[in-house]
């Protein structure tokens, strides 16, 4: 049975909207709760209907608990620094694994993947020691260094390069282009969707990371956003100030959401490069 040409997409859109609503509910609540008066708890606190008189008190309390301006700057330095180095390392390594023949390639690839398989519990002490030995303890560079090589990114770029038909490179190779020209002018432009996806994931992960920066940083001038946020999410005595929490979460997330919207719109451009039309 075939659906009507228009009913199909309409049904799909309705379904997508319904799922999106379920997905967005916690976010809507965060938004409403951040502007709500009663912070600690009331019977109707889960309601998604905003109050008549919104308040900025929660934001003020959240902002007062630390130097957020400084935290933003530090966090931006970390995510930009990490991503910048990663884009180079993963493009090179991804190209090697996807396109070059060399002995031990498969074994080496799995040896790379081990990075993804270790849990922080066993990494903290050895990596902190390495950070101290490299003289990076209590610096933002120390927060970044362990992430410069990324097995995740290398893997993603390997798969992305593999998904690109070889005819373009072959054509360039026949024209005598060196490897780096092929990577730069042929592969990377076509791999943009993969790079964008990786950039989103990398920025999100390091923007939100808590435990490693907490371990490396002592100087309050080097603190990142999540450490500031933790001061009011980590209460141990049963105190939950939902409103301040929601406001703080929004403060941390807002720039990230903007970046996400900006990045993901770039996905569309890749059609221009990947279209193989005549």
């Amino acid at each position, binding site marked *: 049975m075939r659906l009507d040409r228009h009913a199909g997409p309409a049904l799909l859109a309705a379904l997508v909207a319904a799922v999106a609503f379920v997905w967005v509910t916690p976010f809507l609540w965060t938004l409403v709760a951040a502007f709500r008066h009663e912070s600690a708890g009331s019977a109707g606190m889960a309601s998604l209907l905003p109050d008549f008189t919104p308040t900025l008190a929660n934001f003020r309390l959240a902002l007062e608990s630390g130097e957020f301006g400084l935290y933003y700057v530090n966090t931006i330095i970390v995510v930009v620094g990490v991503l910048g180095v990663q884009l180079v390392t993963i493009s090179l390594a991804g190209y090697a694994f996807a396109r070059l023949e060399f002995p031990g390639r498969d074994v080496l690839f799995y040896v790379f993947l081990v990075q993804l398989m270790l849990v922080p519990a066993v990494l903290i002490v050895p990596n902190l020691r390495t950070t101290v030995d490299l003289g990076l303890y209590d610096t933002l560079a120390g927060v970044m260094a362990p992430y410069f090589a990324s097995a995740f990114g290398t893997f993603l770029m390997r798969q992305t390069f593999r998904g690109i038909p070889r005819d373009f490179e072959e054509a360039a190779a026949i024209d005598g282009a060196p490897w780096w020209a092929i990577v730069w002018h042929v592969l990377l432009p076509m791999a943009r969707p993969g790079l964008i996806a990786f950039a989103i994931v990398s920025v999100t992960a390091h923007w939100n990371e808590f435990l490693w920066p907490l371990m490396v940083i002592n100087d309050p001038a080097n603190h990142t956003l999540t450490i500031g946020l933790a001061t009011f999410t980590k209460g141990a*005595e049963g105190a939950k100030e939902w409103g301040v929490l929601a406001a703080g979460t929004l403060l941390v997330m807002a720039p990230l959401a903007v970046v996400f919207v900006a990045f993901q719109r770039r996905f569309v451009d890749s059609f221009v490069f990947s279209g193989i039309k005549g």
Partner: protein
Amino acid sequence: MHVIRRLGAGALAAALVLTSSVAWAQTRIEFFFPVPVEGKLAREMTRLVKQFNDSQKDIEVTAVYTGSYDETKLKAQAAAKAGKPPSVVLMSANFTVDLKLAGDILSLEPFLAAEGTTREKFLGDFWPALHANATVDSELYGVPFHNSTPLLYINATHFKEAGLDPAKPPRTWVELVDAAKKLTKRDGEKVERHGFMMPGGYDYLGWLMSALSMSNGGRYFNESYGGEVYYDTPSMLGAAKLVEDLVYKHKVMPSGVIEAGGVSTAFFAGKASMVLLSTGSLSFIRENMKTPYDVAFVPRNVRNAVPIGGASLVMFKGQSEASQQAGWKFVRWLSSTDVLGGWSRFTGYFAPRKSAYDTAEMKDFITRNPDAKVALDQLAYAQPWFATYQTVAVRKALEDEMQAVMNGKKKAEQAVKDAQRKADELLRPYIDQTALKLP
């Protein structure tokens, strides 16, 4: 670019600091602290440290916020292993035994000796219940900084509705069950409002079970030897049975586990009429509860007794002589009567020093906040906090079993037996090295 410029600036700053510290012969030390209740505490702590730094020229303390109690321990130990131990750490008071066993922290006895005082004299001004958690194997390892006990919070409006007198909160287990039954509101099978709730998550549950077993005449653990816990005992069985009955016989408490944040939220939302929470939440509840409430001692079956909780100042090994002396000076300042009193009024925790309550500010504060007086009076019945070899795992042995009881998966009788067996297994290596290591 930014990165490089920033790193350069950091190096320059470090160089400047280095030269300046040489010039002034100033000792720089680090102080790690968690924030156990609310964000504004971090600011207050930073302010206190600044006050100390401004008060003298020899020592410059960097106050480092280090997350929760657990993360603070994690960071301090990892930093020590990486060769960068902090000087002073505000640490959950029941980690002291494990930290000493791990060889991470300094005995404070030499500092006392240098001052020409003794442990007994030094601890004389601290509440007796705090002494056990400050000492390990008869040596001082921690200086109490802020402390708490469990406390019963009641919703006064609900009490009146149910025909109970809010001025007379339940004092015994019998009265507790009786009041809880009257306070529970049902709509057929469904419970609209629970008469009683207590946090059932890890850490909190073990603390409250020790409160209930102590109120039942028990001890929970051996204060002077880290290799013994008393789970399979009549006092603990009675406590476990009480919890089981509150859920399944009297049906006045929800089944399953509810974390502390859920319990306080339910109390604010009017979904729970009586809750057991820490005195550390007192300020938070005072500020946020919209309807009248009152506080009372934890109800007893045999005797009034509660465990203490809170945090102590400890000093890490691996510091230079100068840093050690500076660290001790800072510990002495932070644990002075005035600082402890001010911190107590700000946070709602107890001041561990008795003398803090003799000051005019404190007397005034207690008059204005009668609920704080109740919490203070309960201190007379306070007992040491659970701390053994592998404290967390040994406590979890009981908590896992109690959570099974609260989920109707196990009977209290079986649960305490299984908890004891598991705890004994965990303690075995230590027992073999100590009590059973015979000539």
